[in-house]
């Protein structure tokens, strides 16, 4: 499996990662090598095998009661935010 520069640019865009011109050829090489390495899975006999998503297959996902369990800690949490105003997280303008 060999990826092109264009493929890597596309993957980086899907992942919302800025990749510099200098980094691009490095990722073309290493991602191609990784995909070639994992392609050996294609030879494994998996006809009729169920995919395994989770190690404890029998476990049922719990639901909790729909009631308030947390206290309001907004200020504490927002102390880690890069930009807030009046309790709101600030981002660049989305709608003109």
């Amino acid at each position: 499996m060999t990826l092109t520069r264009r493929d890597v640019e596309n993957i980086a865009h899907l992942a919302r990662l800025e990749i510099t011109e200098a980094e691009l050829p490095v990722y073309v090489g290493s991602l191609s090598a990784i995909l070639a390495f994992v392609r050996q899975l294609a030879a494994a006999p998996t006809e009729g095998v169920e995919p395994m998503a989770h190690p404890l297959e029998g476990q049922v996902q719990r639901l909790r009661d729909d009631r308030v369990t947390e206290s309001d800690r907004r200020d504490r949490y927002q102390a880690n935010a890069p930009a807030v105003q009046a309790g709101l997280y600030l981002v660049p303008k989305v709608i003109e």
Partner: protein
Amino acid sequence: MNPHHATAAELGRGLRTRQYSSVEVTRFFLDRIHEANGALNAFITVTAERALADAARADAMIARGEGGPLAGVPLAHKDIFCTDGVLTSCGSKMLANFVAPYDATVVERLTAAGMVLLGKTNMDEFAMGSSNETSHYGPVRNPWDGSKVPGGSSGGSAAAVAARLAPVATGTDTGGSIRQPAALTGLTGLKPTYGRVSRYGMIAFASSLDQAGVLAQSAEDAALVLRAMAGFDERDSTSVDAAVPDYAAGLDRSVRGLRIGIIREFFGEGLESGTGAAVRAAIDAFRAMGAELVDVSLPSLPMSVPTYYVVAPAECSSNLSRFDGVRFGHRCRDPKDLTDLYQRTRGEGFGAEVKRRIMTGTYVLSAGYYDAYYLKAQKVRSLINADFSRAFASVDVLMGPTTPTPAFDLGAKTGDPITMYLNDIYTIGANLAGLPAISVPCGLVDGLPVGLQIIGPHFSEERVLAAAHAWQRETDWHRRLPPLYA
């Protein structure tokens, strides 16, 4: 008083019999960290003030006749566990300014047990690495030889305990990140069953694989710390609601009659000869102790590494989408729009290996490739899991080496991701199947430690720990210190 020659269990006994106070012991380890951390880079943050306050509280607890076996014993947490009011960086520039606003369940429980927090340990960025060289805070050095890596991703915790800058430390293991560094630094490293320990407040890497555990000096220490940190937690949806046994009480169980499966696939090409010889000798010693050895084949196990390098990156690409420069962590300067904010924040905040894994995961989940890569890997994961189930129908535990070689040189494998990934060839299987596994020191090759791995069925930590303890009663590999830190 030489607290660095004592295990956590021994320190706990010394504290309860008032041979020394927790404040004295804590000051001793803080001094040791102060002297040695410059060379080892094992700690990202040292919480000296908090440690002394914790210690004073523990002393008061002990004076009142309260507190269990770990009261007043210092420890270090891997910097992946959120710690209220303390920098929790996960080894990344992305979180280099993140002061956690709450405690992870692991932190909360070990604090409640009276343990004293010395600091937060260095690690591969977001736990992605096998050598502790991907950390934003620089590599950690192996106390046995400063030119070698300590393993990863819990490399800081491993170096800290190996050099006895802390009696015990927490770690996390997604593909070997507790057992591999434990093997490379001469420690006892336990990865519990998936779901045994709460992951609440533990920064997520690959959610179907991640599990918290312990890097310790002995199976007894691992048993005590696991008991204190394990158990049901409604805040983690994968936490299993099952009683936590008194692991320490079960340690003396004899290995007579124990059926040990020797994994044939773990002794093939790629296993360094000295490592193989030490592990074989250890397994033979179990026979001398009355265990029965059985040759076992797990034919799909060689597919573990490629399976892991589809599943883990896929899950990481999803988990790490939360780092967007909006609510916490790094943010780029002067974003011109929202896409620019995301792309530059993530491009600047993540290191090269993390970006590589996010992109691998994005690719294998993308339209047109999902079936060929992700779904296929999940099916192979079923085959690997079935191999383990079949093996455990006829044996009690499985044994083999933890790593193919002892610690390697810093920089030796950073140029080639696949060579680095193959370090975890013997450890990944237990993560894919969610099994408990431990690495115990079983020899030295050219002055570097070698680890024996013991894997058990789901929730058989008692059995795995008892086998490790039986080995440690017969040998003293776990009591050897790196010469520079003796």
